[in-house]
């Protein structure tokens, strides 16, 4: 039975909370993943660690997908809408056609893309 990334992330953070040094905690996390044959999930675990750390400080992990690259000013305007505690990641996704899509903590989505609108009009 595979262990979920959230369990690894919680264990990692609680180790840090107990005073284990960062290097040792990272080393043991990697050893644990290799031992269980789940080393390919390191990215998922890292994302989960990041999410829990941001959540702990009262922030959210926000992924904003744009249909095309934004100029610096537009990007700054968008980032200014979020709290300083939030971790904001931007990505380019041409499949959106136009507009943008926001993902909060990997669990909530706000879709304002043209692709979503077209799918609603022409299901």
């Amino acid at each position, binding site marked *: 039975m595979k262990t*979920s990334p959230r369990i690894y992330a919680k264990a990692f953070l609680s180790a840090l909370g107990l005073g284990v040094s960062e290097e040792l905690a990272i080393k043991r996390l990697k050893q644990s993943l290799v031992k269980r044959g789940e080393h390919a999930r390191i990215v998922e675990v890292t994302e989960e660690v990041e999410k829990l750390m941001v959540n702990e400080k009262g922030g959210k992990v926000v992924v904003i997908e744009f249909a095309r690259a934004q100029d610096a000013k537009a990007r700054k305007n968008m980032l200014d809408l979020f709290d300083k505690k939030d971790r904001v990641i931007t990505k380019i996704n041409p499949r959106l056609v136009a507009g943008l899509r926001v993902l909060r903590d990997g669990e*909530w989505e706000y879709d304002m893309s043209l692709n*979503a609108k077209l799918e609603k009009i*022409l299901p």
Partner: protein
Amino acid sequence: MSYEIIEKLKKEIAGYKEDPKWQAVGAVVETADGIARVSGLTGALSQELLEIDTPSGKISAIAFNLEEESIGAIVLDEPSKVAVGARVRGTGVVLSLPVGDALLGRVISPLGVPVDGKGVLVGDNNTPLARSPLERSAPDVVSRESVREPLHSGIKAIDAMIPIGRGQRELIIGDRQTGKTAIALDTILNQKNEKKRTICIYVAIGQKQSKLAQIERRLREQGAMEYTVIISAPAGAPAPMLYLAPFAGATIGEFFMDRGEDALVVYDDLSKHADAYREMSLLLRRSPGREAYPGDIFYLHSRLLERSAKLDEAHGRGSLTALPIIETKLGDVSAYIPTNVISITDGQIYLESDLFYQGVRPAVNVGLSVSRVGSSAQTKAMKKVAGKLRLELAQFRELAAFVQFASDLDEATRSKIARGELLTEVLKQADGSPQPFYHTVPLLYAALNGYMDGLARDTVRDFERRFIEYLDLRHKEDVITPLADTGVLDDKTEEALKHAITQFKAL
């Protein structure tokens, strides 16, 4: 035409109201063998329909296992399209199927998609069909009434000794190649002869495509597709399709039952259904139990078969009769799935390989076959005539071992053996030729009352054919029509029948 399409599109765009809102989503973290493990979507419902984003569009899945950290979902499309990281959305609805009269004569997948190349399913005035959920609670006790109307199978041995009532669940069980499907198909074909039309649903679970094509052709050629729907989940379909197929059949049957009509659903077969469910359960890492089936395998079949019912007057008096089929291995009825389904159903028709190879077809083992509620639904005329048939055959079976010493036996034993042999011959019936009950009743009357005694075994078939032709030609008014209309063999009709048999024998 193109102008109309453009206008419709313009209308759709003009009427579009933007209403973006936060929506719960998840992500695929693992996928294999038609199963996707999804993280997130913590508020998903059991059996909720999910949508998975793929490069070629959205595909559907069903939330099956709700676990602490993830959801085990079964993918309802090509599983190879699903990639790790794909976004998953809940829809808030459970899986449903289009239902309506437009389904009659069609072959559809368990998801309600036509697979016969005859176009999309549309209702009256090109409106979309209403949808009905695949999983629904069975009718409660209050809305049911007891089974008391007959559903004639057209098979002499069954209508006479193992009668089936509308709303009953009668299991057809036997080894491979013993004629299980043939009995179900004959029952469907026989509905053409019935005054009260029964809608038939044939659910093919894990059957070969070639066999299904043959069945469809046969039903179409004999005019039975007009009142039949076929649900196809062939052997090559993914396990979730095989799992869903009988529920789709029950859903369609319930649609007609709720309208006050009678429906018959054939599940061919539930052994393969149980195997598909076992495969899914093991892939979902549910604990295996006996024969590696999951713990809820009994509940799977009981909740499916409990949906068969005869509704009371307040609910329209519709009915849903079920004929589940189970394939046994080397005649072992005490295996796990056969005993489960035997205990759920209201009786079983047991087919035996030995009888089949002896030429007794349908190969019904009368001793082991039973109908627990059907006798109260049996047509009165049939009940009156065939009452002693089971006893006569049972006595014959006891004496059958002495057949080869017949010359050394006393007269009474010899006559019992002769009568048993005659009745066995009379009950033989060719595949695909169901017989209406108003023909079976006079024939059995003649056989059981000594009118056919002394007839050579190889002439019984010919006697039967000529006798029925004779009754149809000369005694339609006084024998056949009263029987067909009332279902009762009253004194007047009985006298006319006796007279007709005497006249026929004198010819």
